[in-house]
Each structure stands twice: as C-alpha cells, then as structure tokens.
C-alpha cells in the first residue's frame, strides 16, 4: 500500500512539474520570446556561478567530513611511496581542477548573452595552443617519472631474507600456507586436491618439502620484516587486496603471482594509532569472483617476532592432518635435487 502511495506521490509531483513547465512555455509566448529568453538566461547564468561557489564549498565540506574515514598512514614501508605519489598527483590535479572549473563557470556566467554584447571572433592562436600543450606535457612527465620510480620499486624482487607466505584464492575464502621450518614450500598439483582428506591445495605428499608446510586461517607476519606473498587461485580469478599496506595482486589460476612488502606496525600498534579497538588488517578480494565475492575476507595479524614464534610453534603441519596415523614430519627429511627444482619453478 505504501509503495502504491509513493508511486502516486511521484506521479503527482511529475504532473505538477509538467504543468508548471507547460505554463511557463505559454507565459514566455505571452511575454514575448525575447523577454523570456533574457529571463531564463539570467537565471541560468546565476545558477552556474552559484553552482561553482557552492560546489567548491561542497568539495571542501566533503573532504572535511570524509578525510577521517579513509586510510591513515600507510602500514607498509612500500606504501609510503604510493602515498607520496598520491599527494603529488593530488596537488597537481587539484590545482588544474580548481583553475579550469573556475574559468569554465566564470566565463559562462560573465559572457552570458546580453543586449548589445558582441562575441569576439577568435578562431585560433598558436601561442596559446603551444602553452597548453607544453605545460601539461611537462607536468605529466614529472608524474610519469615519479610514478615509474615507485613502480619499479614496488614490483622489484623481494629481498632474499623475506618470509614467504602462500595465499591461494578459492570461492570464497583464502587458503594460507606457510613453508614451515625449512623455509620452502612443497610441490602442488591441482589434480591432487581433495578436501575430504584434508588436502585443499593438492600438496604432493611425495615431496619431502611438504611435510612441514602448515596451513592457517589467518596470515601472521612479523613487524618490520619483509614478506613475500606467493599468490594463486584454485578456480576463478581473485585478487589479494591489502588496502592498509597499499598493495594488490591478482590471483590467477595456473599463473602464480607475487608481491612483497614490509609491515611497519603491529596490529596492536595500529589499534592505538587509529584509536579503533576493532582494527584489523584485512585481505579483500578485489576481483569479481562470484556470488560470495563480497564476503571473501582474510585477516592479517602483524606481531612481534616473539609473538610470531610462539604462534608458529602451535601450528600443525598439514601432512599430519592428512595422515592422522603417520608419524609427525621430520624436519631433517632428505631433499632430493629434483624436488627442489620443482618447487623453485612452482614458486617462481
């Protein structure tokens, strides 16, 4: 019923607007076309300049309202470069934005049609064209140069001592695997995947490197220690989005990708910094992956080395879960050369 009423009200408003519009058309005929034109021109000219002024105030107000809700300082060392670049770009584009919008609406207002005013025949001017070709070109060169500098840093090889975490996307959660004490991830084969026997990643149990790999539900990282994510997908394309660290990388089935960064603050420190006791580093899936896309959430805990070590000590290798009867994996298991190569190609 209320829906029907709402529609009725909208229709009535439409009719009123339409009647007014229709009437104004007749009035303009009565008043004379010229006078009506002058009047509507004055009103629209005024509205244009009002839009400019209120719009710029609105831009300021909007920023005031929302600036606290966007991310604060970057939580990774690499993200600082991204933030610097954003600020530089913001200043350049901001200046251009204000200048061009002010000119546009100011000119529209100032040169509105007036009795006796003649337009100035001004078809071209090469000097002006050169000026506004060269200035943007210079500004953009600066941005490209800065941008590429950061780009190559962000996409560079991870340091040798970086911790390794494997993140595999599936509909609709993340499978996280740590290499265990040996620091190397074991071989995987998607044909060996079998959830029923606790092997969601298709780990090849013949590979000794797999024996100490453990899987977790949360990613734990050590603060101020570089970490390399090895990213893959089991089904469709996902994307590891790390907004607080300013990082992002697609998870593509069949094609492993990587990213690395160095977290700057522990989760606890961030809770204090952001004044938010519920603060959590989140992994958001950023690539449309199906109906549960919006719920594909992962959690990252950044902690001190001591906390991390205590956490690792509690983790059980997946091998043990998959082979409840078998003895716990021995970290000193012999490593064949061939397996190492396979792993190397697997993890790139």
């Amino acid at each position, binding site marked *: 019923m209320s829906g029907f009423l709402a529609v009725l009200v909208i229709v009535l408003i439409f009719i009123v607007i339409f009647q007014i*519009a229709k009437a104004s058309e007749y009035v303009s005929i009565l008043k004379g076309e010229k006078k009506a034109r002058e009047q509507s021109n004055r009103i629209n000219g005024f509205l244009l300049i009002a839009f400019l002024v209120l719009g710029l105030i609105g831009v300021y107000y909007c920023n005031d309202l929302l600036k606290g809700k966007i991310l604060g300082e970057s939580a990774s060392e690499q993200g600082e470069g991204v933030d610097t670049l954003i600020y530089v770009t913001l200043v350049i584009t901001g200046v251009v934005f204000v200048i061009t919008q002010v*000119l546009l609406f100011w000119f529209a207002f100032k*040169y509105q049609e007036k009795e006796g005013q003649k337009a100035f025949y001004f078809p071209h001017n090469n000097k002006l064209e050169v000026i*506004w070709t060269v200035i943007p070109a210079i500004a953009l060169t600066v941005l490209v140069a800065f941008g590429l500098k950061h780009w190559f840093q962000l996409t560079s090889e991870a340091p040798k001592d970086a911790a390794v975490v494997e993140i595999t996307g599936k509909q609709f959660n993340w499978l996280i695997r740590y290499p265990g004490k040996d620091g190397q991830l074991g071989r995987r084969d998607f044909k060996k995947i079998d959830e029923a026997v606790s092997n969601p990643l298709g780990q090849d149990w013949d590979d000794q490197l797999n024996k100490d790999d453990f899987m977790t539900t949360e990613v734990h990282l050590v603060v101020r220690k570089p970490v390399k994510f090895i990213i893959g997908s089991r089904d469709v394309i996902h994307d590891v989005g790390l907004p607080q660290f300013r990082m992002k990388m697609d998870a593509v089935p069949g094609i492993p990708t990587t990213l690395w960064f160095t977290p700057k603050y522990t989760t606890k420190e961030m809770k204090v910094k952001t004044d938010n006791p519920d603060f959590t580093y989140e992994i958001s899936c950023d690539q449309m992956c199906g109906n*549960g896309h919006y719920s594909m959430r992962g959690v990252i805990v950044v902690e001190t080395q001591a906390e991390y070590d205590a956490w690792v000590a509690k983790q059980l290798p997946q091998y043990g879960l998959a082979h409840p009867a078998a003895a716990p994996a021995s970290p000193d298991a012999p490593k064949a050369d061939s397996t190492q190569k396979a792993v190397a190609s697997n993890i790139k």
Partner: protein
Amino acid sequence: MSNEATLHSQQEVMHGAHDHHDHEHHHEDSFISKYVFSMDHKMIAKQFLITGIIWAIIGAFFSVLFRLQLGFPDATFPWLESILGHWAKGGRISPEAYYALVTMHGTILVFFVLTAGLSGTFSNLLIPLQIGARDMASPFMNCLSYWFFFLASLVMMTSLFVQTGPASGGWTMYPPLSALGDASIGSKIGVDLWLTSMALFVVSQLLGGLNYISTLLNMRTKGMAMTKMPLTIWSFFFTAVLGVLSFPVLLSGFILLLMDRHAGTSFYLSDIFIAGKALANEGGSAILYQHLFWFLGHPEVYIIILPAMGMVSEVLAVSSRKPIFGYLAMIGSLFAICILAFLVWAHHMFVTGLNPFLGAFFVLLTLLIAVPSAIKVFNWITTIWKGNIHFTPASLFSIGFVSTFISGGLTGIWLGNSSIDIHLHDTMFVIAHFHIVMGVSAFFGMFAGIYHWFPKLYGRFMNQTIGFIHFWVTMIGAYLIFWPMHYEGMAGMPRRYYDISGWSSFKQFGGLNEFISIVVILVFAVQLLFVFNFFYSIFKGRKMTTQNPWNATTLEWTTPIHAGHGNWPGEIPEVHRWAYDYSKDGRDFIPQTEPIGPNESAH
C-alpha cells in the same frame, strides 16, 4: 576524391527524392518501409535513439535496484519480490541477483546505450545532413546495422528471463568465472546468450562503422573539404575508425570463450578445481582474455566519449556565437586520442602480474592521453571566453560536459599511474572515475545532442523548462553521487561488493552509501521526466517555425523542417567555408553555403 562518381550516385538518389516530393504514390511509402525497415538515415537515427532510451531506462533502473541493496542492506522492500520473484526473497535482493543487475547495468549502458544509442543515433542523423549527402553510402547496410542491434537487444532481453538468470560476472565477463557454469549461476546459459547478443552487436557496429567512414570520405557535397567539416563529423569519423579496428578483436575473444565453454578448448583455462573436481584444462591463460577484451575495451571508452566531444564542440560554438577555438588543434587532438586509444589497454591490467617493464610503457602512453584531452578542455573554455552565450538545455549540458570531463579526466591521471593504481585498482575510486568521465559526461553530450537536434529530428522543440530542471538536478546529483565515492575508493573499498557491513576497513561508509542511493533515486526520477518530455514533445512540442532555429552555419539547417528521404528537395547546396563563421566581420553568423565575399577577412 572521385567527385564525378560521388555526384553521379547523389544524382540517382536525388531522382528518388523527387519522386517522393511530388507525392506520387510510390511503393516506398508503405508503413513497413517508412517506419520499420526504413533506409532513411534520419529514421534509422530515431530507431537507434528510441531503442537506446528504452535500454537506458532499464539499465538505469537496474542501478536503482542494486543501489537499494548497497544503501539499505538491512531493509526489505516487499515490492522487489513482486517484480524479481525468488531473486529477491522477502524483499531483499539476493547476491546472485545483485551481481546480475550490476553486470547487466554495465553491459546495457556501455554497449547498448552509450555506443549504439549515442553514436548510432547521431552518426546516422548528422553525417549525411552535415556533409551534404542524400543518405548513407549504403542505406541497406545502415538498415541492417539497426536490425542487428535490435536482434542483439532481443537476445540480451531474453537472457534476463531465463531460469538461471542473465550473465553475472561483471560487464567485462572475465573467464574462468564466465567460462564455467559451476563457478556462478549466471555463467550457465546466461553467458551464452550474452555472448550471442554481443556478437550480433559487433556485427551491427561494423556495418554501421564502415558505412559512416565510407559515407563521409566519399559523399561530401561540392566544396566540403575534410577541413571544412564540423567537428561533430570529425568525431564520428574517429569513433567509427576505432570501432571498426577494435570490435573484431573483441569478437575473437568472445569466440575463444565460447569454445572454452562448449568445445573443450583451454584458451583461458588452466589448473582449475571447481565443484569438487579438477578440470582437464591445462596451459591456458585467463589473462589472454583480458588482453583481447581491453584491446576493444579501452578504445570503447573513446567510442563513447568522442561523439559527445564532437557534439559539445558544435553546441558550444553555436550557443556562444563564436567559432570553436583551435579547430585544427581539436582535430589533431581527436586524432592523437584515436591513435593512443589503441596503445593503452594494459593499464586495466596493472595488477594481473603484468611484466613491470611492459607496464611502464602503458603508464607513459596512458598519461600521454592527458595532453590531447587538456588541449580540448582549454579550447572549449576559450571558445566560451568573450562569447555571447545563450543558455539552452543543450548549451548547459555542454558546459556540464566540460566540467565532468575535467573532474573525471583528472582522476584518470591517478589511475593511469601504475603505482597509484595498485592501491585504487578495482575500488570504488575507479567506479567514480569512469562514471563521471564516460558515464555522466557521455550522457551530458548525448543530452546536449538530443536537445539541440530534436527540432531536426521531429520538427518540434522539447520543453525548455523541463530541460532546465533536468539539467540542474542531473548535474548536482551526478556530483553528489560520484564525488564522495572517490573517498570510499581511497579507503580501498572494493567495487562490486554486495554488502560491506562485515568489513572493519569499509563499514564506516554505510551512511555514505545510503546518501548516495537516495540521490540515485532522485536523479533517476528526473531522467524519467526527461523521457516523458522527449516523447510528449514528439507529438505535442512547440512547433518549429523557421528552418534554422539556433542560427547555425551548418548544412543540416538548410533542409526543410520535415525533410523527406534525400534531405534536400532540390540540389544539394554547395559549401564555401568552414562551419564556424560566427560573429565574423560584425555578422552574427555566415552559413557554410555562402560564398566568401570579396572583402571578407581571412580566419
């Protein structure tokens, strides 16, 4: 130019036109051939426009539906269940339906409205009229072009009603999600219908595009050198070139996808475990599809925006009573944009694991596009400087176009820079960026075109007051919707999220989402007002009493108010000057058909 051949073919059409005007009862006048399978470019333009408007209402309505979910995730709307059935059980849109709506909104607006509805309408209407031709090079192909579009529309419409729903993997239709029915309910028959519809659509675009190009290269009236053409025609030319060169690549991508779906191939599929079993596919690359898609996908955004740029240039010059500033620079920048459009596609793929070295070139080329874009903006601003501007709905929408093109274009500089893109990729920032620059701007260009050329289409005017209301609410609404959306993206809030309440990093935007949704509903209502104004004015609008209501110089205003097939009853007028002699030598305007006077100053 083979003038003789051109004149000859024009002569032939002219005879046909004479028959028509002598009111002989000719077989061409049947209802079917005049209104349905018409070969008159003006009628085909109207067909494209009205089909586009119907699609626009559907596409925009879908956005209202999913904004209801986004803005009011906890509320229920029982009436939704009555229209969507089990897709909105209990009055709450299901995730499946949400993603189907999002996907269809994108597909419909990008392809059916802003490609077919925009360049289909105005290329058809204006190319023959503004270059002085009786019709297109091949009126039959032109007719086919519309009917292929119509078929594409039918198939897409059908897909909305199949049991498993329409395609729902996003308008970009990335595999493997779109390739595997097990990955998403929308990837069952929905994607097959989507691909079929899009294939028909590509055929329509190619038929249309080839026709536009050959018409404007070969059939210009005497004296209409390329450099005397209005900028509208130049923009339609580059639009058609972009379409003809890039749509086939898209089609090839679709065919491979279709084969992966049904022929057991592995172009895009590799190492996939889904629905409890590992698939046999190995060795394919899901990223290959993205290359093929964006090779069209990026030129596509220029296919959408160039016609709007052309029409805005024309409308700004006419309503400021000034020549467009820097005519040659405007053509040069269109050309530069057209070339660069083909060289930037991988900027949509910076986070796919693209080789960083290759990515660097795409950064450079992408930011390079800002230069011709900047030239255009400064030229438009200089065009209105020291003008004598008459504010019509068309000229207001043109000014609005420049404003939104600046706002959306500048955020393109953010996203084109790969380092910033890493943070903003696939967030609401991207949504805000492209909706402002190719959604709102392109619509503003289209509205400017509709208001400006409505008298040429129907011999009547649209109601101005409703036009002003339409402009102001849309302009203010567009900024209110999309400006704050940038902040959501800055926080990293991903696009295509059905519900953000479970995320500690994004849930602070619940209130903002609600605000945006309310504005969306308001703006949508005003678009309905425009649609009403449009259809009402076709039949009841104020009648046009003079041939040239805007005092414009271009040729379309030298045709009779209700021009028949063939456009000019007599000879096609000869052209002696460019299209922008406004306020020259103390005269308000000099039509293109007027010979250059002996004492006239050079421009």
